């Protein structure tokens, strides 16, 4: 795969307003290699981890940029450095635990030792043994650093990029999204745990899902019936300049039950009658006064940051080959949460994660689409017209797929895909 040249793909985009997505994008091996070069090793900021995971100097955590494993760590002077987890000598995986503490890193194979900034510190037998062997006189340690990434952070979110061309992080994210990040990270967070899902689908299907408010009120009964999310609520979809990032946001205001009834007339998913025998799940004090029940942000290429009721989480979409991804969740609350607030977030973990009332259905959606599209002809494509055709711009409605089109627009541009003549 890795040896695939960047040019080598037959894909041309059928329509210029991205209302159609050729199913080929979900099972074409040549695209996978191209994504690695253009998106993950290219001029984009890729999410690495939270600063909260490496608060102390010497702490490190491993993560993935695309399917490349990367080590992120904090140095004595408090800076954050990141490098590919592969030794500069003969390439062995350098760090062998998922997370830990280390002031330097020694490779198991020949014990080359690297600083936590990625510099080569020492080489056994460099001058040989008993005057024989060893490295050539002209061997220059400074020329054998680890392969490092540029790192930037915003409000505790740590990003990295392999490219020198990548614009500054704030500009990359853009003001509209920064504001939403500010809202959540207005105070220190507290790590509550991780979840991992191995979804049998192409990674981009998850991005489609979480950029799509249209499914939110239709796939998930819980959303609808218990008022976490309804298209009849006050909702907006907005994007950055590139249209590659997006926010779906709903607040529990301006909603009349008649509207709800009319929208769900004939649907099985809305059950006004539906009651919980133990409703304490919803009996949790909101974390913010703004009545926002649902905020799903995506940062291109593969980060999701979200709020669902009282739950806050990072969802990192990690490709594991063409037809599988790991959905890696970082579930957090706030440092000043009291016991009740924490207990409330643990209760509401029943909404999210691999077993969550809402989130389990998103994994299933990925599986269903991957299964479905593999039977289709390569030339077939999906229909993405909800919210109208044409220009891709922010919309004050949830009855739209415009952010999905935005994703594909930026994806095609980033990979340098042509439009069909």
């Amino acid at each position, binding site marked *: 795969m890795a040896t695939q040249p960047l040019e080598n793909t037959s894909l041309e985009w059928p329509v210029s307003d991205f209302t159609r997505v050729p199913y080929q994008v979900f099972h074409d091996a040549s695209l996978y290699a191209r994504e690695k070069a253009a998106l993950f090793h290219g001029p984009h900021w890729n999410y690495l981890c939270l600063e909260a995971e490496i608060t102390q100097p010497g702490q490190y955590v491993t993560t993935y940029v695309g399917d490349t494993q990367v080590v992120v760590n904090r140095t004595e002077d408090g800076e954050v450095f990141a490098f590919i987890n592969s030794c500069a000598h003969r390439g062995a995986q350098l760090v062998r635990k998922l997370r830990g503490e280390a002031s330097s890193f020694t490779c198991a194979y020949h014990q080359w030792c690297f600083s936590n900034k990625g510099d080569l510190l020492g080489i056994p037998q460099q001058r040989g043994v008993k005057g024989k062997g060893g490295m050539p006189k002209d061997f220059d340690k400074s020329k054998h650093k680890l392969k490092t990434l540029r790192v930037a952070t915003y409000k505790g979110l740590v990003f990295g990029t392999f490219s020198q061309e990548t614009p500054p992080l704030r500009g990359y994210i853009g003001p509209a999204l920064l504001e939403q990040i500010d809202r959540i990270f207005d105070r220190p967070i507290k790590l509550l745990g*991780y*979840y991992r*899902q*191995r979804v049998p689908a192409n990674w981009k299907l998850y991005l489609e899902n979480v950029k799509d408010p249209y499914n939110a009120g239709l796939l998930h009964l*819980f959303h609808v019936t218990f008022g976490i999310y309804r298209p009849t609520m006050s909702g907006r979809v907005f994007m950055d300049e590139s249209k590659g990032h997006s926010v779906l946001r709903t607040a529990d205001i301006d909603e009349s039950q008649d509207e709800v009834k009319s929208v769900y007339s004939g649907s099985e998913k809305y059950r006004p009658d539906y009651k919980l025998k133990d409703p304490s799940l919803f009996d949790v004090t909101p974390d913010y006064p703004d009545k926002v029940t649902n905020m799903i942000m995506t940062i291109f290429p593969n980060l999701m940051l979200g709020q669902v009721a009282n739950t806050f989480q990072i969802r990192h979409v990690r490709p594991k080959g063409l037809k599988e991804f790991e959905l890696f969740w970082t579930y957090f609350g706030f440092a000043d949460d009291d016991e009740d607030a924490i207990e409330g977030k643990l209760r509401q*973990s*029943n909404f999210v994660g*691999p077993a969550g009332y809402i989130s389990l259905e998103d994994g299933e959606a990925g*599986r269903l689409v991957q299964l479905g599209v593999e039977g289709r002809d390569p030339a077939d494509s999906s229909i993405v017209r909800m919210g109208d055709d044409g220009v891709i711009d922010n919309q004050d409605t949830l009855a739209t797929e415009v952010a999905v089109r935005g994703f594909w627009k930026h994806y095609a541009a980033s990979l340098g895909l042509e439009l069909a003549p």
Partner: protein
Amino acid sequence: MTAMPKLGADVDAQTERQVARFLTQYTRCLDEDRLEDWPSFFSGNGVYRALSRENEALGLPAPLMYYYSRAMMEDRVTALRDALTYEPVYTRHITSGLLIERGDDVLISRSDFALYQSTEEGITRLFAVGAYQDTITQENDRLAFIDRRVIVDTFGIQNLIATPL
């Protein structure tokens, strides 16, 4: 002698059989898709909690599943039956490693499990291995879970968890 904890030493054979049968009835209930009976294995305010071995090892509290009343469990069953979208599978639990000790008025039980899922086309996958850490009470001569903690080694969950482990 660490290798020989008193653990279980003081539980009589009769109790051991009773607990073993209870635990087997639980897994069989799930494997026979009698989900509606699942909550009845718990006392009214019994707690069912599934935790990834990762969070457990890191001392992080976020659970995979967390039901702290029989009513909540009944809500889960209703959702599984009427509302949630997930792949239909046959399940099969294989268990072993039962060790029991007596706490004050309760029984503390430890056992291991492997859970297999088979698709409608008869392809079987190992869905999860892990451990059950149980606190069991004797209510009017039947057993019930006060607390069942399921430690999941296979926390890289294969897509999703629908039915209880």
